[in-house]
């Protein structure tokens, strides 16, 4: 067995040969399982050390300043310095807080994010566990993170933390709906829920087959993390920093790590579901090349998340919920219907083509269907915006007492304008 062809099996064989000398067989297999779990968890916990530095440097350059560049070469050790600072801070528990819940909630937030990495495929044979319901598993552990935030806000015994937690949970639970719907599109195109199967089915990257679904998944996942432009809940200028106001020291550090790791997981999942995961020239024969391609694509997704943070302003809570229920959810439902119809109707025609051209033909037709959907959405939105503008002008010229009506009508076109601003960058 070759290390280059199958690294995980090779290492497992070496370890089991080593341990079988002085341990019975079932214990060896359990130990190997534990080693695998520890490797996956450690990888996802060590990664934020690099991610936080990456983000701070990139955001710094986008804001025309240098990021941290003193501590260590090019500032790489800055995160370690910050971690040490957080660890030696005083561990405060507020008066009247529910101790057990207060301490558990940051741990639960980190657990929710690390568990997502158990099903992410790094290469065709390097994966934590190849669940056949991988896509649904990701949604289910994501909802554990929502729970952690709710508990953290309640356990702080602080009115403002509770309010912040309510708003956070309202946002997170609302944005789960279009996320699950848009997650259904790659599952539909790949005919399977397993993440490795989805990657293997991407002869043409799914972002070309279903750009609308990719846009919706990316936007709603960024909203699930709680990053700008959806970070109303924890921004310093909003309701006294939201649900984690009473957390300091390493507990806040855990929320912090969970957020950055979740942001990178969003980039990694977009890469797996829409950008072809580990696929690339030579990835089938050399799995380590697959890992390299996957990390490049995941960092590309993460860079896009950072770009959105640096460039976009924050959305208000009622605009945010309007955007979700009045724009993203109907668009996601429309995308599923259009793509499912187009894919199924094309199937008999695709059988008649040569196997080399068939994926590209499928990609072309689905891309056209998506562009048609985008065109229809744009026409609908511009019509409704025009109608609202006409009503506002009529209201302004109609009477003097209609001053405050103007404000209301001025705000209403802002929601579709936000929607259009979001449609524009992805196409």
């Amino acid at each position: 067995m070759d290390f280059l062809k199958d690294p995980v099996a090779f290492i497992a064989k070496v370890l089991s040969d080593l341990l079988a000398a002085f341990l019975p067989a079932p214990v060896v297999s359990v130990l190997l399982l534990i080693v695998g779990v520890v490797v996956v968890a450690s990888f996802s916990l060590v990664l934020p050390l690099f991610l936080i530095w990456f983000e701070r440097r990139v955001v710094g350059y986008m804001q025309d300043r240098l990021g941290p560049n003193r501590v260590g070469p090019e500032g790489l050790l800055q995160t370690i310095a910050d971690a040490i600072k957080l660890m030696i801070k005083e561990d405060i528990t507020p008066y009247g807080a529910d101790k057990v819940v207060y301490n558990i909630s940051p741990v639960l937030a980190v657990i929710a994010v690390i568990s997502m990495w158990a099903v992410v495929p790094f290469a065709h044979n390097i994966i934590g566990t190849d669940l056949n319901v991988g896509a649904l598993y990701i949604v289910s552990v994501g909802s554990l993170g929502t729970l952690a935030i709710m508990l953290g806000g309640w356990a702080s015994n602080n009115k403002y933390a509770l309010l912040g937690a309510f708003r956070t949970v309202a946002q997170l639970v609302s944005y789960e709906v279009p996320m699950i719907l848009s997650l259904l599109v790659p599952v539909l195109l790949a005919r399977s829920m397993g993440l490795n199967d989805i990657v293997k089915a991407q002869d043409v990257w799914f972002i070309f087959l279903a750009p609308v679904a990719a846009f919706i998944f990316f936007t709603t996942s960024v909203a699930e993390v709680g990053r700008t432009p959806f970070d109303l809940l924890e921004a310093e200028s909003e309701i006294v920093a939201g649900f984690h106001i009473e957390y300091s020291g390493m507990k806040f550090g855990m929320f912090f790590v969970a957020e950055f790791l979740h942001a990178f997981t969003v980039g990694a999942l977009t890469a797996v579901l829409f950008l072809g995961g580990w696929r690339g020239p030579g990835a089938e024969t050399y799995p380590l090349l697959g890992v390299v391609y996957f990390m490049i694509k995941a960092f590309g997704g993460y860079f896009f998340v950072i770009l959105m943070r640096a460039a976009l302003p924050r959305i208000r809570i009622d605009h945010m919920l309007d955007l979700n229920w009045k724009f993203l959810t109907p668009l996601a439902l429309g995308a599923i219907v259009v793509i499912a119809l187009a894919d199924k109707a094309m199937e008999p025609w695709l059988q008649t083509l040569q196997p080399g051209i068939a994926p590209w033909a499928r990609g072309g037709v689905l891309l056209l269907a998506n562009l048609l959907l985008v065109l229809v959405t744009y026409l609908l939105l511009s019509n409704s915006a025009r109608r609202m503008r006409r009503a506002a002008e009529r209201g302004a010229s109609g009477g003097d007492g209609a001053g405050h009506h103007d404000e209301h009508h001025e705000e209403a076109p802002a929601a579709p304008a936000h929607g259009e601003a979001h449609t524009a960058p992805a196409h």
Partner: protein
Amino acid sequence: MTALQIIFLIAAAATLISGLMVVTARNLVHAALWLIAALFSVAILFVLLEAGFLAAVQVVLYIGAIAILIIFAIMLTRRVMQDTGPQTNQQWWVGAIIAVALFAALFVVLQQVVYPEVTTAIPPDSLKALGNSFVDPNQYMLPFELASVLLLAAMIGAIAVAGDKK
């Protein structure tokens, strides 16, 4: 005692202990947390029963939606931040007697049943078969549509009952 049996015993113990803590906890939010532990243990049991899809749906639906809804309702319907006083009503001993008697009766019945030996294995594409059964007119398409209408009615009803009427 195979490994699977040990895992089953641990999961079953977790479920029952969490369930007991749900019904006896004084602080309602603690009871909700024990409920989440019980629901998670049931998801583990579903995995043991090789119904992975149901386990994932259990976590998404029960823990990610229903438990959060219950915690919201607890937080919106309390007058003080801490709970005081007993949480059981005056006839709790009648409830205990009924529950224990019912369990004793069920246990006796279950001991006397002759369990059939079935050797058909679970087909490898049971997930696809489940998905097909949702939309096949000869199978369960009608219950699927009825379930969606039920959920729509529940959604409209909840908004109508609990919505703010300005």
